[in-house]
């Protein structure tokens, strides 16, 4: 093969060190602006929008296979689903009767107390998992709907067994949720047994939620169920969060911490529900010193100190 080798006495073009220094500065700038903006980084959103068509492109075979599989199994799926629904209907009948009774009682009590009931019905969007990002630093899931479907950062994500996480970033077509176990998430919770109010944080240990900042004599023990308390207005009250499986009391500091296992199973489901809570209005309605959405995680003690 004919080749033309040009010998050069001096190096031409930009020196590699200059390029490297420039890129290092850009990287540092990006990292810090990203850490500052968190949920609304325009650079990230632009890039995400640019990458989105390619993400869908590579997932086309999987989507096609899923569609084909669904088409093949439609009949048997409908049959099993019908049976499950039938069983559920019978189970639900009992629950509904009891719920109606409790509701009536509750309304009466509320009237007595003069409490204004907040609107319980909230609009929600069903989202499907697009993919699970593989960064070692965060535990996130990316969904297939974004601002176009009315999703905004801070909205809670639930499945049938409780809170799954919270939306952290959105683009027009996708949204990214931090799992309960992600460090970015903090949720105001209540112990179901005795109503003790606490704050649950994502923890360093994988698959666990951490409850911090409560006095060591607080009534909390293994097996206690945590539900959202509704304080802060982001998470509606009464959603299951986790079950306490370890309580560490430190007599020296007077504080205790506990670990809970989330009750939701984000790894088992493909569909989730994003609750479209209004993120400004309701917060003002409640106490000001409450955990904000994940964009500004509050690390203040809930009790004690």
């Amino acid at each position: 093969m004919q080749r033309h080798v040009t010998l050069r006495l001096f190096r031409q073009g930009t020196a590699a060190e200059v390029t490297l220094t420039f890129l290092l500065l850009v990287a540092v700038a990006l990292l810090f602006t990203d850490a500052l903006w968190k949920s609304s980084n325009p650079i990230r959103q632009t890039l995400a929008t640019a990458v989105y068509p390619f993400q869908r492109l590579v997932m086309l075979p999987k989507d096609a296979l899923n569609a084909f599989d669904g088409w093949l199994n439609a009949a048997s799926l409908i049959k099993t689903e019908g049976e499950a629904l039938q069983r559920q209907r019978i189970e639900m009948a009992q629950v509904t009767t009891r719920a109606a009774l409790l509701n009536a009682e509750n309304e009466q009590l509320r009237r007595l107390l003069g409490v204004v009931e907040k609107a319980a019905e909230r609009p929600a969007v069903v989202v499907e998992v697009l993919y699970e990002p593989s960064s070692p630093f965060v535990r996130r899931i990316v969904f297939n709907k974004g601002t176009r479907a009315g999703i905004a950062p801070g909205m809670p994500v639930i499945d049938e067994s409780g809170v799954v996480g919270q939306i952290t970033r959105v683009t027009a077509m996708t949204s990214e949720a931090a799992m309960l176990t992600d460090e970015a998430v903090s949720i105001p919770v209540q112990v179901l047994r005795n109503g003790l109010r606490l704050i649950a944080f994502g923890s360093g240990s994988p698959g666990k939620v951490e409850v911090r900042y409560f006095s060591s004599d607080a009534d909390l023990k293994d097996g206690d169920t945590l539900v959202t308390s509704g304080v802060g207005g982001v998470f509606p009250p009464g959603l299951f969060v986790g079950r306490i499986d370890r309580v560490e009391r430190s007599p020296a500091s007077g504080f205790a911490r506990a670990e809970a296992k989330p009750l939701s199973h984000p790894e088992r489901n493909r569909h989730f529900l994003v609750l479209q809570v209004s993120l400004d209005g309701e917060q003002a309605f409640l106490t000001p010193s409450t955990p904000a959405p994940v964009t500004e995680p509050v690390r203040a003690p809930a009790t004690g100190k």
Partner: protein
Amino acid sequence: MTKYSLGTSLLQARNLQPHSLEAAMGWHYIWLTTVCIWLLSLLPWRNWPVTPDILLVVIAFWSFHQPRRMGMVAAFCFGLTLDVHDAGPLGLQALLYALVVYGTQLLHRRLARFDLLRQAMHLIPLFVGAKFVTVLVGAFLVSAWPGWTWLPGILLTVACWPLVGWLLLLPQHRMDDAGTGIS
């Protein structure tokens, strides 16, 4: 296909025949392979923490082999897109890619004297060092140490160098063989 024996490697005769390095690889071939591997990287198979980063190897290999066609800026941009895809800190993988490409270009003359296997051995400190820097930066940003699973991951990544290099150069070997009449 060139067979590398220990003798020729030790004699280092290959650096006197620059044709295997400077032979024209079409820019379309380089970018096609890189973009294909980039698309593959968007699939969810990388979720296992020990998965090798094939895209990094491909980019590093081209930046060593064809430094004028694959530079630090391109590597940086590829890293940025993966940062967005992985929802990690923006700029972290970009930093890793730029550092690795800079390192391979710095080691270019040294690497050119060795075969693919020995190149991989020379690249271990570079890959591990660059990864360690980015893991430190990431740990600083999220104030949590992500554990050591990245270490086997990056070692596997370097271990892919000989295989990836051999695969990427297959067309060229064929061209060479045809040129010299060896089938």
